[in-house]
C-alpha cells in the first residue's frame, strides 16, 4: 500500500516533465524524458560512470562519518562539561553562518581538489549534527536521570536503558536529513573543485558540451544515491530500535 502513492506522484512528475519537454521542444533547455533515460542507460554501460559514482559515494560517506564522530564526541563532552559547550557554541554559530559558497571557494584555495569537498561538508554538516545531538542528550528528562541516580542504577544501564533509547529517534532523524544534504554539498563542491572521479565533474563536463539530457541523467543518479543512503539509515534505525 505504501508504494501506490509514491508511484502516482512520481508518475505525475514524469508526465509533467514529458509535456513541458514537448511544449518547449528545445533539447538544450528541457530535454525529452526518453533522451534522458536513454542517456542514463548508456552511462550505466560505461566504466567512468561507476568510477565517478564510487568516488562521490566514498567522499560522501567519509565526510559524513568524520562529522558524525566529531559531533557525537563533542556533544557528549559538552553535555558533561558545560565550559566546553560555552566555548564551542560561538564557534559553531560562526561556522553555521558562513555561506556555503564561501566555504567552497576558500577550501579550494587551501586544499587540493580531492580533499576540499571533505572539508566543505564538514563545515556544513558538523554544526547541524552537533546542535541536534547536544539537544538530544540534554532533553533526556532530568527527573528520570535524578531517579536513576537515586536508585543507584549502574552507569552502563543508565546509558543503554535511559540515554540511548531517548536519544535514538532524534539522532536518526538528524542522520537522515544530514546524509542527503551531505550528498548535495559534496556534488556542488566537486563541480567547483573539478575533483577527479566524481559525479560533480561529470555534470560539469556534460554542461561543457551543452548536453542537458546527460546533465539531467546524472541528476537522477544523484537523487537515487541520496534516496538509497537515506533508506540505509532508516534500515539501521529500525534494527537499532528493535534491539
Amino acid at each position, binding site marked *: 500500500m505504501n508504494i501506490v502513492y509514491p508511484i502516482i506522484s512520481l508518475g505525475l512528475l514524469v508526465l509533467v516533465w514529458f509535456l513541458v519537454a514537448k511544449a518547449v521542444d528545445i*533539447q*538544450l533547455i528541457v530535454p525529452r524524458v526518453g533522451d534522458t533515460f536513454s542517456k542514463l542507460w548508456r552511462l550505466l554501460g560505461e566504466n567512468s560512470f561507476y568510477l565517478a559514482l564510487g568516488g562521490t559515494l566514498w567522499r560522501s560517506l567519509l565526510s559524513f562519518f568524520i562529522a558524525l564522530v566529531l559531533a557525537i564526541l563533542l556533544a557528549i563532552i559538552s553535555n558533561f562539561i558545560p565550559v566546553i559547550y560555552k566555548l564551542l557554541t560561538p564557534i559553531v554559530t560562526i561556522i553555521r553562518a558562513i555561506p556555503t559558497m564561501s566555504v567552497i571557494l576558500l577550501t*579550494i584555495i587551501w586544499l587540493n581538489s580531492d580533499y576540499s569537498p571533505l572539508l566543505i561538508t564538514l563545515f556544513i554538516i558538523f554544526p547541524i549534527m552537533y546542535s541536534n545531538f547536544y539537544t538530544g542528550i540534554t532533553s533526556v528528562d532530568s527527573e528520570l536521570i535524578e531517579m536513576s541516580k537515586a536508585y543507584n542504577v549502574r552507569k552502563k544501564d543508565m546509558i543503554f536503558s535511559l540515554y540511548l533509547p531517548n536519544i535514538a529517534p532524534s539522532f536518526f532523524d538528524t542522520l537522515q536529513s544530514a546524509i542527503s544534504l551531505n550528498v548535495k554539498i559534496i556534488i556542488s563542491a566537486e563541480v567547483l573543485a573539478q575533483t577527479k572521479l566524481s559525479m560533480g565533474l561529470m555534470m*560539469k563536463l556534460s554542461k561543457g*558540451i*551543452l548536453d542537458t539530457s546527460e546533465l539531467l541523467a546524472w541528476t537522477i543518479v544523484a537523487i537515487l544515491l541520496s534516496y538509497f543512503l537515506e533508506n540505509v539509515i532508516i534500515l539501521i534505525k529500525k534494527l537499532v530500535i528493535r534491539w
Partner: protein
Amino acid sequence: MKKLSKILVIVMVLSLVCCVLFACGNKEPENATINITIPDGAPTLAMAKLMKDFSYKDYDINYEIVSGTSEIGAKMTQGQTDISIVPTNMASILYANGLDIKLLSSNVFGLLYIMGNGDVNATSLSDMDGKTIYCIGQGGTPDFVLQYLLQENNINATIIYVASGTDVIPLLMTKKAEFAVLGEPAATMSVSKAGAKVLFDMQEEWEKLTQFNGYPQASTVVRSEIVETYPGFVKAFYEAMEENISYIENEENLEELTNTLKDNGSAVVFSSTAVIKKCNMRVEDCATAKASIVNYLSVLKDFNPATIGGELPDDAFYYNISK
C-alpha cells in the same frame, strides 16, 4: 451568422494577402531591435568600439555581457538574443542541435599560453616531457589544443585540470605547479601576481604543426532570421567589427574602451594594450577562415566528437559576407 462568417473569412484572407505582399516587398525594415549577447573576457573586446558608437538606421541595438557561455545557447534558441560571439566549437554544437544560426566571422584566434613558475627554465616543448601540466577548460579548447600539441610533438606529460585560471595562479606562486596553460588576461596576471613566465605561445606551436595562423577559438554567430531580414545591418555590423580591431589595438583608446566595457557590465580587465594584442583578435570572414575552422574542429573532433556536436557543420552553417 452565415453572412458574418463569410465576411470574417474575406477579411482574414485579405489581411493574409496584405501580409504576404508586405513580406514580399523584401525591403529591410527601417526599425528593429537587435540583441547582442557576449561572454565576458576577450569576446567583449570585439565589441568595444561598437558599444561606444555603432549605429545603423534607427535600430535599437542592445549589448549584454554575461559571465560564461551557458545561457547564450538557451537565449539564442528562444530568440531572446540575435548575435553572439561564442567558442567556435560551441557554435558547432548549437548548430548540430538544430539551432538555426549562421557563422559570420571568426574573431579570436587563440589566446592560450603555457606558463612556467618563476623557477622553471624550459626552452622547448620537450622540456615538459614527463612533467605535470595544469590546464584550464577540461573537455574544451584549452584541453584539446594542449593534448594536440603534446601528442603531435611526442611529449608525455600528466595533465591536471583546474576550473579556472585563478585556481592555478596560487599554485604557480607557491611553485607547486611547474607548468600551466592559461588564457589571457589570466596569463599576464600570473606574471605580475605569481612571478610566472610565458614559456610557449600555443598559437605559434599550433602554426608549426598546421600552418594555420592560430586557431579560430571564438566566432560570431547570428540567428538565420536576422541574416535574412536585416542583411544591410549584418554587413554594417561586420564592417564595424573590422574597424574595432585597430581601435582596440591602439594604446590611446585603452582607457576609453576599459570604461566602455565596465559600463556595459564587464568584470574582466585588460591591463594593457599589449595584453589585448596577445588575444590575437582579428576579423576573418567565412571565405578566409573556413579552412582554419574546419581544421580546428576536426582536431577537436578527433579527441571527442561531442565537443563539436558530433559532426562538422555543413556548408549552410557559414554565411559569407559579400564584399
